[in-house]
């Protein structure tokens, strides 16, 4: 059943409240949307409603982390990561053990339009040398990532979706931090995908089999530190690389893969993602409009490989 990774996050955070007494949660007047409301209801003394003050929330959480707590701070990704310079100083450079939880990423939030969409957040966070970045692609992976981050002693960014995501993994799935997740083997090309569009990329690859294309699909849940060795290996073995993400193709997964390959394994690439500002529409219509639906990915991959 399709489930938003923000919902998975909210459920898992409540579970962790019982086992992690140092865990504290902050929100900036969006706890119903970010799903931190469940933790707030169960552990009110460890939940801090900061009002609409993202700068101050970032700084206060950093201060708490420097005093031994493990804060998760929640907002729409564009509102919290948009206060980047405070993250840079108070979390990154201060080495504060804070997890920034950014929900409502990508154009798939739909009708609210660009002002609420985070399309540049990965690019910003990737520039901080000590920032862990995780973007899960389904419910199981999201819960595993939240569990991992609760024990992770490092500044971190967790990027979550508003929209429901289909299951990609079974009950036996084991989240391995910093390791790419091979979903489908193939020899003609490799697709590296992350977050909400991994499912579309996988389905596109499956359907391209009938057109004689054997395409490997790799889910990149950990964008920083990137599994660079596996990226290089896949590029060597397939010779063609595609990236798919609901984010700007500048500085996101596409940028990260291009940087690695440019230095270690120059390979022809196609980056699929956002190249303009977002707009209003249903999530489905927007994915069709921007070519991030199954058909759009299929069309762009086929054109790249046959072109």
């Amino acid at each position, binding site marked *: 059943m399709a489930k938003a990774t923000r919902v998975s996050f909210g459920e898992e955070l409540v579970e962790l409240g019982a086992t992690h007494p140092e865990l504290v949660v902050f929100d900036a007047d969006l706890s119903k949307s970010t799903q931190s409301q469940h933790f707030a209801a169960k552990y009110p003394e*460890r939940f*801090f409603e900061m*009002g609409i003050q993202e*700068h101050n929330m970032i*700084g206060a959480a950093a201060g708490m*982390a420097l*005093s031994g*707590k493990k804060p998760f701070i929640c907002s729409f990704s564009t509102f919290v990561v948009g206060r980047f310079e*405070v993250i840079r100083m*108070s979390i990154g450079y201060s080495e504060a053990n804070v997890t920034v939880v950014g929900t409502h990423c990508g154009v798939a939030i739909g009708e609210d339009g660009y002002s609420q969409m985070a399309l540049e957040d990965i690019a910003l966070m990737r520039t901080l040398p000590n920032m862990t970045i995780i973007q899960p692609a389904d419910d199981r992976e999201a819960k595993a990532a939240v569990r991992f981050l609760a024990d992770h002693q490092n500044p971190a960014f967790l990027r979550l979706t508003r929209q429901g995501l289909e299951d990609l993994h079974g009950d036996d799935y084991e989240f391995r931090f910093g390791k790419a997740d091979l979903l489908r083997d193939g020899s003609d090309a490799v697709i590296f995908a992350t977050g909400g569009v991994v499912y579309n990329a996988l389905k596109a690859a499956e359907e391209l089999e009938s057109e004689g294309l054997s395409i490997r699909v790799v889910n990149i849940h950990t964008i920083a530190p990137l599994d660079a060795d596996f990226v290089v290996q896949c590029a060597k073995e397939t010779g063609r690389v595609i990236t798919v993400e609901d984010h700007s193709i500048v500085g996101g997964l596409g940028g990260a893969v291009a940087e690695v390959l440019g230095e270690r394994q120059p390979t022809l690439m196609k980056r699929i993602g956002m190249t303009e500002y977002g707009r209003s529409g249903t999530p489905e219509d927007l994915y069709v409009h921007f070519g991030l639906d199954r058909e759009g990915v299929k069309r762009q991959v086929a054109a790249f490989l046959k072109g």
Partner: protein
Amino acid sequence: MDLTIPALQRSANEMRIDIIRMLHAAGSGHPGGSLSLIDILTVVFLRYIKRTKENALDPDRHRLVLSKGHGVPALYAVLARCGVIPHEDLITLRQVGSYLQGHPHNGSFAPVEASTGSLGQGLSMAQGMAMAAKLDKKPYKVYCVMGDGETQEGQAWEALLSAPHHKLDNLIVILDYNKGQIDGPTNEILNLEPLGDKLRAFNWDVQEIDGHDLAAIDAAVARAQAENGQPHFIIANTIKGKGVSFMEHPTEWHGKAPNAAETEAAIKELEALLN
């Protein structure tokens, strides 16, 4: 250590000499705001925080966040006085390889508590530390020293709105109100006044003192120990460059290091204060 007011005054002036020597050796830095700040830090660190090498990283220690990070030479000087920094290391300020960064970086040197220097952010971090103390029911106090220029930042006003809401009476802010910033006098660049009225309206417990009168600083900080449900704000009226006659100017000595002749003249003046 002799903690009488005359002894503290002498210590503060000795640290002024340290600051001048550090800035001259570094060849850059901020003398005006360091000299305006040192009397405040002297009282807070020696009489209240009682910092020692042993307690510098104790989880229950009193904390001080220097939000106006450009005043860090004063913080290093007082930490050296407390035995946390070997005195001979002060001269490495701002040199590659030194742990004494040009603005506070807790990753290079943990006893500075937090990384500051991008103005307006320190109070939020101090607020978070005070919230952690409340959550853990620990008695430690959190001090935050701000500059007047950085109080123009939007984030500072977010925290000024937030800390009283959270009833953080374990948080003590001291404003080094030296009336100057890089481009000119603070009241001409962007006036803060009436500042006390604004802060009282925000539900802070406000005091206003002469920030170079050590007895007044001591009395204000003593009063700010009260746990009355309100965070405390001490407006300390100071003079930029205090103690060196030719540096006592709102803007001229904000961000330039003294040359050899100026250093010699400054130290001569400060040594006269010791005798």
